[in-house]
């Protein structure tokens, strides 16, 4: 009887502790799009959890500036998940898939950037914020022939991420702090 009670107590503690741990590390979103993968002409599917990130980090070169920057970037992250699908023709994928991802965002997620284009690329960037800290990032990019989702789980330093762009040979664009759409918009 005591054993049963102990097991129940441990289960209860574990059940309570799990969301606390998850909340501290941000949220991993469900990025499964089986229909899209089947239709796409090219697919990028990257799933790197904490252990794989640490393993990857050990293989990053200290001599390569890109990889050195990447190592700094992943420090403390719990996961990076990328799904990118390229299609042969326009309109070949269901754009409502983006909405399916947005529906997973809880109240701690805030939209920080929205780029809307009728002809080119729509990009939405959401941050999972706990106080002043960003504990997760979601990027949804929808192009006529390409759909990309990036989910970074863990404390994301946007400055480092921005610096990474310049580091990767991409021109660094100075941000003056304003966003194209309301910074405090949430889940829309």
């Amino acid at each position: 009887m005591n054993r049963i009670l102990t097991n129940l107590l441990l289960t209860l503690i574990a059940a309570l502790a799990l969301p606390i741990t998850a909340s501290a590390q941000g949220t991993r979103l469900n990025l499964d799009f089986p229909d899209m993968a089947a239709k796409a002409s090219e697919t990028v599917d990257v799933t790197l959890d904490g252990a794989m990130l640490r393993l990857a980090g050990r293989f990053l070169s200290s001599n390569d500036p890109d990889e050195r920057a990447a190592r700094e970037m992943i420090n403390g992250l719990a996961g990076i998940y990328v799904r990118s699908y390229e299609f042969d023709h326009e309109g070949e994928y269901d754009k409502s898939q983006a909405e399916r991802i947005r529906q997973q965002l809880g109240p701690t997620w805030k939209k920080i950037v929205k780029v809307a284009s009728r002809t080119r690329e729509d990009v939405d960037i959401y941050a999972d914020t706990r106080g002043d800290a960003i504990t997760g990032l979601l990027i949804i990019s929808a192009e006529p022939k390409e759909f990309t989702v990036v989910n970074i789980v863990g404390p994301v330093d946007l400055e480092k991420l921005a610096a990474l762009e310049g580091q990767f040979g991409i021109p660094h664009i100075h941000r003056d702090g304003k966003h194209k759409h309301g910074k405090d918009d949430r889940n829309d």
Partner: protein
Amino acid sequence: MNLDDDLTRALARKSAPDGFADRVLSRLDTPKTHRTSLFTRIAAAIVLTAALGGLTAHQIIEHRRNEEGERARRELMTALHIASAKMRVAQRAVAHD
């Protein structure tokens, strides 16, 4: 004088007994008898096999880990390139706004 006689007798050339050379040669041709026991030989074989097996397994695991690490590194760089490219699009739009 007796000593001289004794020495002369002792050192006198004598023919080898019949068949002596054959016996010597036959002994030379015979392989040495291994005196290690069967148990020792089996134990040594087991130890050697285990050592070689362990070494091979270690090398296989190390090789797989290296492959896995390399793949993880490539995937990480791909993921960060994609993420940074999308950030660039957003930042350009913000900068032009």
